């Protein structure tokens, strides 16, 4: 090329036609795929939009829904308080609402890594106490609410948040046990982890709901929610243990040796040298365990706990609202999707940040 000749940027980077050519019609196969895909999207999206938005009813009584072709979102809007809060006393439902807002606020605040310090632990302590008081009541002039009345979304969040916070330390201990040089400790940890990971959560929930009462001496009963919570904790801990083990194995031997040569004992080596590094590596997979735990709480439906899925089904079993399962389940799917998606986005962001640092 002659010196001084103007070099134009490649077409593909600048114009819309160029973009289309590069991304949709680059080869014969791609053109074919694009056309096929567009055809099917054209066949599915407009009817769905028509069903979900154009022909739909949003705030009508159930009889009106029978006469329309579209979706009946009224099943959500008319029953939203029962779906979200279940059997919590109707006039007291602001309490679980505030508790959930506190939780969301805390989660949002904890998203940024530069806020991860001692103060955050205090905030969580205060936040969890406020939530417990709001849910349970009995002091500060709040009427006491039995835990059997806790249902809906607060129950789902309660099971997942407490499930993870209690399972995390247990999982770390199990992971350390599995890496331990003491045969008895190692064997016990391996047996526990493999046993739990080998069986479905539902069998543990059955165990919690049917067998657990037999384990206790006569006269002592534990609420159903707590029994399910214990099952979820025991289950999640085994998965966290495996995730943490991955982090422990990634720590080079030199770190242990350096710690030993400084005269640190086992406890100090782990707390000050190994675990801070190992747990940092495994933050992204830990978040995916959290996401699984959040999704898995829906299984308590099977042992008849009223989480948000069960309250929705209760609404759907009402003769007035029978037959609108699609709409209700799509609403729940969006709810779960928002929860899981925000968590996985956060996890990806953290992963990027941690990769840059290394």
């Amino acid at each position: 090329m002659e010196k001084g000749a103007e070099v134009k940027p490649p077409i593909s980077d600048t114009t819309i036609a160029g973009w289309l050519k590069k991304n949709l019609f680059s080869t014969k196969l791609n053109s074919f795929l694009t056309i096929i895909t567009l055809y099917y999207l054209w066949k599915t999206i407009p009817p769905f939009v028509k069903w979900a938005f154009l022909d739909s009813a949003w705030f009508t009584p159930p009889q009106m829904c029978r006469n329309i072709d579209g979706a009946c979102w009224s099943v959500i809007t008319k029953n939203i308080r029962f779906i979200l809060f279940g059997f919590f006393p109707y006039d007291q439902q602001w309490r679980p609402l505030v508790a959930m807002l506190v939780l969301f606020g805390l989660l949002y605040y904890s998203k940024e890594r530069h806020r991860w310090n001692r103060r955050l632990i205090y905030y969580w302590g205060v936040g969890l106490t406020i939530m417990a008081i709001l849910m349970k009541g009995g002091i500060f002039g709040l009427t006491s609410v039995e835990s059997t009345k806790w249902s809906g979304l607060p129950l789902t969040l309660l099971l997942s948040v407490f499930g993870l916070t209690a399972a995390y330390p247990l999982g770390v201990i199990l992971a350390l046990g599995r890496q331990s040089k003491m045969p008895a400790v190692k064997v016990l940890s391996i047996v526990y982890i493999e046993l739990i990971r080998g069986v479905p959560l539902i069998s543990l929930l059955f165990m919690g709901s049917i067998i657990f009462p037999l384990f206790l001496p006569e006269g002592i009963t534990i609420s159903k929610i707590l029994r399910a919570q214990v099952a979820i904790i025991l289950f999640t801990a085994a998965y966290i243990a495996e995730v943490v083990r991955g982090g422990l194995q990634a720590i080079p031997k030199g770190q242990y040796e350096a710690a030993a040569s400084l005269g640190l004992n086992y406890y100090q080596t782990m707390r000050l040298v190994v675990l801070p590094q190992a747990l940092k590596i495994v933050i992204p997979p830990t978040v995916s365990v959290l996401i699984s735990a959040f999704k898995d709480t829906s299984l308590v439906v099977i042992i008849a706990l009223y989480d948000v899925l069960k309250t929705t089904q209760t609404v759907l079993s009402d003769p007035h609202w029978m037959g609108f399962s699609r709409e209700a389940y799509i609403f729940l799917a969006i709810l779960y999707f928002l929860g899981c998606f925000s968590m996985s986005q956060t996890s990806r962001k953290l992963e990027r940040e941690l990769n840059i640092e290394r």
Partner: protein
Amino acid sequence: MIAVSKQSIEIETVREESVPFWLDTKKRAIFFQILVLLIVGVIVWYLASNTIENLHKQKIATGFGFLHKPASFEIGESPIPYSSSDTYAKALFVGALNTLKVSFIGIVVTVILGTFIGIARLSSNWLVSKLAATYIEVMQDIPVLLQLFFWYAIFYENLPPPRHAISPIKGVYLCNRGIIFPRLEYHPAYGYALTMLGITCIGIWLLRKWARKRQEATGKTFPLFRVSLAMVIGFPVAVWIAFGAPIMMDVPKIRGFNFTGGASLSPEFMALLLGLVLYTSAFVAEIVRAGIQSVSKGQWEAALALGLSHAQVLRLVVLPQALRVIVPPLTSQMLNLTKNSSLAVAIGYPDFVSVANTTINQTGQAIEGVALIMLVYLTFSLSTSAFMNWYNKKVKLVER
């Protein structure tokens, strides 16, 4: 030399004397382990003694004697003949077969669909790639139980009754009783064709040995894949044609309020299969994508530079490396699918957990029932991990 070793022995003896037993790491380890075992033992003993006492007070018999009693409940669908007068053992066996059935079909479909979506995710076509990405993200983020309920609701609420069944293909009907489709009626020719298929497989195995030997000796290659594909399809079909190419279809017909004839898949089975497949294939797609991306472009270029054909590069260089990354997480997803099939209990498909649950409700043998559930799933997962260990050893990188 001797003097030095004597000295070191002396030092050791001196140290052993000077260290008190509570600072000796070995002794401390033993003490700690005994303590842990004691604590675990006490907890187990405490729970067990409470349980025995409670069972005694509530007059619940223990043991597996109930397995030989008649179950006296019907099971909606069963691959083997079963009636309510059969024993609990047989009912549970039917449940296990149903679990295996849905898991096996589910795994096959999931792997195919997941691979397809994983490749679509890597497509250079923007639209296809983004669609695959959306599918993966959405399906992973919705609990599988919710998906099961959704598909089940679609089947029993939104599909028409048999009289107004939708027929996407002639002879196949979609209605609130499930999917009804024509069934091939048995003819001896099929048996002969199957036998031929077996013989062909042995033949191909011998052919492969011969082709490899010849290639090693003379360097001549043999189009093994094409020839064996032709053999696998050709020979059984030839046998079938030799017997007059019989096709006897049992086509379903509407009679009264339901279909007669043909084969059907129940709405419970279909909802379970759909939910499990759509959920798990999103995870499989991610695994396949990661596996394909893990093989660097240089591998392709190097293999092509050696003069291998595209098919050979794929078969001999790329796939073995990608599979090493793909297979371990893939097996764990297959296991997840099998474990998630236990959610069948929520929509009424008679899988093992569902039958065991009914058994528990009828007999009150909760401990035995839950133990059986755990045992069956542990058998699945332990045999899978045994296979995994074998496979990992086989494909492990051989390094210097």
